[in-house]
């Protein structure tokens, strides 16, 4: 049975949804308060969940990156441990430098909250291993700062190393502009493919009766 450590900062609000998701997938979980300095020894996966850590003050994720627990997360990731950042968690992981690029204010300035179709770009990683390339998934998004930016050289590297995970798309998989992200990028991973970040919320897509269960196969890939 896999053990999932879910971080909690002041202002995190997707910690319990994420816990529900992984318990539904038969994992054991711990919610780790940000003042902790160590992760549980049996941790198989760390989740930096969504929300508004520190009220998004300064920049989204900027202050959370210096919480005591993040040192342990960086060490864990550098040893090859799997880390997933969802929404605000993605912002925290870019701020702390575990993922390339940065997330800016949405191009239309609106907070966007809706179901969104996404195209799987690269499944050569644990997170999307259970999905097919070019498959279209339906996953909710809910963010104001999801406009992914990376410079040209950084973008080339992402493409060459198959680090682009997902793009906002229409139902046929054609990219669409949602928030101004470079080439509609919705999620990326690091070079060594053990740290993942995305703006959409797979933990909110677990049951068809609530609109989609496409989140299940994403999360399952990380605990396989």
């Amino acid at each position: 049975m896999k053990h999932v450590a879910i971080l909690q900062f002041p202002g995190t609000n997707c910690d319990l949804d994420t816990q529900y998701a992984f318990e539904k997938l038969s994992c054991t979980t711990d919610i780790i308060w940000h003042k902790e300095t160590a992760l549980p020894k049996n941790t198989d996966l760390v989740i930096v969940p969504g929300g508004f850590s520190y009220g998004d003050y300064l920049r989204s994720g900027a202050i959370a990156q210096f919480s005591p627990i993040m040192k342990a997360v960086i060490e864990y990731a550098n040893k090859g441990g799997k880390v997933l950042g969802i929404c605000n968690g993605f912002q925290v992981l870019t701020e702390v430098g575990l993922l390339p690029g940065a997330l800016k204010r949405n191009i239309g300035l609106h907070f966007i909250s809706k179901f969104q179709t996404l195209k799987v770009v690269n499944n050569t990683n644990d997170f999307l291993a259970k999905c097919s390339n070019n498959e279209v998934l339906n996953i909710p998004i809910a963010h104001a700062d999801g406009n992914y930016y990376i410079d040209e050289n950084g973008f080339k590297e992402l493409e060459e190393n198959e680090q682009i995970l997902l793009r906002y798309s229409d139902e046929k998989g054609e990219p669409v502009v949602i928030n101004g992200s470079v080439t509609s990028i919705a999620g990326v991973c690091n070079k060594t493919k053990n740290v993942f970040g995305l703006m959409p919320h797979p933990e909110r897509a677990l049951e068809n009766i609530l609109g989609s269960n496409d989140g299940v196969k994403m999360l399952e890939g990380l605990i396989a």
Partner: protein
Amino acid sequence: MTAIVNIFLKNGVLDPQGKAIHHALDAMNFEGVEDVRMGKQIVLKLTSDNKEDAMKEVEKMAEEILANTVIEDYSIELV
């Protein structure tokens, strides 16, 4: 001593808030505005009275947390 840190998105990085302000100014018939960039200003009251030390310290703060140098530039003024 007071340090004033101005932070702006880098040139070439699209600034959606600046764009929105520009549109609003156009709609209000203010003419002659070529471009609008929106940033933030952080004012730090320092205990140090040595300019050189203060500058070094505030630069470090700007690099480490106040600005995200992937997308932002900063300038520091000591007064």
